[in-house]
């Protein structure tokens, strides 16, 4: 498929501090790409460079094969939806959406046509004469999207567009955005630090940390096969549990890990170099079972949260920071009473001392 956007070795420095440290990325036409990463890792900066709001220190940005480094946003064929929506409070919804067309000096009839079409898609037809101040958060967001749509851009850029909304509205808007993507078929690049958004919306997720890409891949790829401890910990909620250990032996596609008080565990991995190294085991809270499994340990929950749909146990486990277990429904656990839990070896992630996954 055609490449919609290519970033080659993009770097960005603000006053001596290098914020983006060489990013390469190839985005296919029609893809939905999500940038995630901890606060301050450079997501917004990267997006703004693609948009043309921020200059690139070095590297190339190509859109549909043309180098656009020097072009202003509008010439790049992108449209951006800001975190704060950046609606013009003094204009009606109609005028807000029509703004890019006004700039182009399109005839009124054409403006009407396009705005109406966009408004219909976004179910804003009834609101066209209102001002943003009188709209709800979700409606505002749709207006912001409307302003992006009318331009018919090749690429949509979103910078945490849902972060200002409350939970209910957020999940609603999430669905709407995905439907919009399906309908328009445009390339979308989306910045968020919300797990669920990243997992549900992305065709591919780009995990950033400190200005570098940690891993690129489909949501389930990242969930099941994180490349390193950072991605493993970052993707999935509640967070993956990590247990420190030491590899005592590694041969014949088998590694043996000493977990201290928790005992030892053998995993099927072909990694002879691991012998003697400090390693980290990762196991997701939802992969912990009350039933009999490959490996079991006893924990004493010190806090239990009943969410109805599932139950979360917090416990102290040697070699692990906060240990969390998640069970469906309501198991009969009680705070302060030890229970035995287990997990399957197949669900275990293994990381070497540098944090890289050992598959």
């Amino acid at each position, binding site marked *: 498929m055609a490449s919609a956007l290519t970033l080659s070795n993009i770097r960005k420095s603000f006053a001596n501090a290098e914020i983006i440290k060489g990013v390469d990325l190839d985005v296919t036409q029609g893809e939905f790409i999500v940038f995630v990463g901890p606060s301050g890792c450079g997501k917004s900066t990267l997006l703004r460079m693609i948009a043309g709001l921020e200059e690139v220190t070095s590297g190339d940005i190509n859109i549909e094969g043309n180098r656009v480094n020097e072009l202003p946003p509008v010439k790049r064929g992108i449209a951006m939806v800001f975190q704060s929506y950046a609606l013009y*409070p003094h204009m009606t919804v109609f005028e807000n959406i029509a703004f890019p067309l006004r700039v182009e000096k399109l005839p009124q009839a054409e403006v009407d046509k396009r705005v109406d079409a966009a408004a219909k898609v976004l179910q804003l037809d009834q609101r066209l004469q209102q001002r943003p101040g009188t709209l*709800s958060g979700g409606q*505002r967001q749709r207006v912001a999207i409307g302003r992006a749509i009318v331009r018919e851009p090749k690429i949509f850029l979103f910078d945490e567009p849902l972060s200002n909304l409350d939970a209910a509205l957020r999940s609603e808007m999430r669905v709407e955005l995905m439907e919009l993507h399906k309908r328009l078929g445009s390339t979308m690049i989306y910045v968020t630090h919300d797990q669920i958004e990243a997992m549900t919306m992305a065709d591919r997720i780009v995990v950033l940390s400190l200005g570098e890409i940690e891993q690129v891949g489909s949501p389930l790829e990242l969930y099941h096969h994180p490349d390193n401890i950072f991605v493993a910990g970052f993707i999935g909620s509640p967070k993956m549990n990590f247990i420190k250990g030491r590899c005592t032996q590694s041969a014949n596609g088998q590694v043996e890990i000493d977990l201290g008080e928790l005992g030892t565990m053998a995993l099927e991995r072909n990694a002879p170099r691991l012998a003697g190294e400090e390693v980290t085991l990762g196991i997701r809270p939802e992969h912990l079972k009350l039933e009999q499994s490959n490996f079991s340990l006893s924990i004493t929950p010190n806090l239990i949260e009943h969410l109805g749909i599932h139950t979360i146990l917090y416990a102290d486990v040697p070699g692990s920071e906060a240990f969390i277990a998640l069970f469906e429904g309501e198991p009969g656990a009680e705070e302060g009473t030890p229970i035995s839990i287990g997990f399957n070896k197949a669900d275990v992630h293994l990381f070497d001392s540098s944090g890289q996954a050992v598959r």
Partner: protein
Amino acid sequence: MTELARSASESTATASAEQKAPAKVKARSQKAMIDRYTWYEVVGIYAGIALFLIFVLAPFIEGFLVSLKPLAQLFSTPYNFIPENGSFQAYFDMWNSVPALGLHIFNSFFISSVITLMVIAIVVPAAYAFARFEFTGAGVMLGAFLAVNMFSGAVLLIPLFRLMRSLGLLNTYWAMIIPGAAFLIPSSIWLLRTYLMRIPRELDEAAWADGASRLYTLRRVILPLAMPGIVVISIMTFIGAYAQQFIFALTFNSKTEYMPLPVGLFGFFGRQEVLWNELMAASFVGILPVMVVIVFLQRYLVAGLTAGAIKQ
């Protein structure tokens, strides 16, 4: 005005949108408990306000009483607070003593209005530049602009006079307007700048991303949003021009038909005796129009200042 008020409240709404979606601007129709005062607090507050207002208004009270007293009674002891057989005669006589009084009031209004328009036209772009663009020397330049306010007209009178003469502007309205505006510009830039800095930068970026030129952005996006701030600056400029520009009118203009009110009032001094009562009457009539404006706009004055206040 309602238009203005609305866009003002909306701009705060979007600005606070960062916090949470439904902006909770509560109309305090009812007093919260914390604003409930005990009786002695109420007495204290009113006493304080009374004291404050007495200080502020005492000269006006004196001035008003003077305007009611016949001239002879003004210069008599013992002091009489309440005018004996006071009358509004001075308010009629003054039109004869200084026949051009109406014209002077008009001139004041005219000159102040033109100054205000000019100042706004110059200040808005400048304030925008300072508020939005980071270029080397911006700080120094802003400081330099502000420094200008330190040189009152009195110090620069002679060179200014020469300048006005070489420009051929003496004895025209421009002789009062041009220097008048100059000394009002810097502080207006300062105040409007703080206001503009409150407008989210993303609005500029959004417009830029939508292909709007910088000028278009300024005109269609920033200007309408800055309206409350601009209103405040306008009021302050107008008042400044109306009340304080005296020395230029005195020196650079000698045509009675162009004289603004403050100089026109000097007509009451030009005779054997100063017609204090008529002078005061004329002063009151002269400030009336501005007071009317203030009554209607004071809300915007306070609100508009609020936007920029605490920050700087």
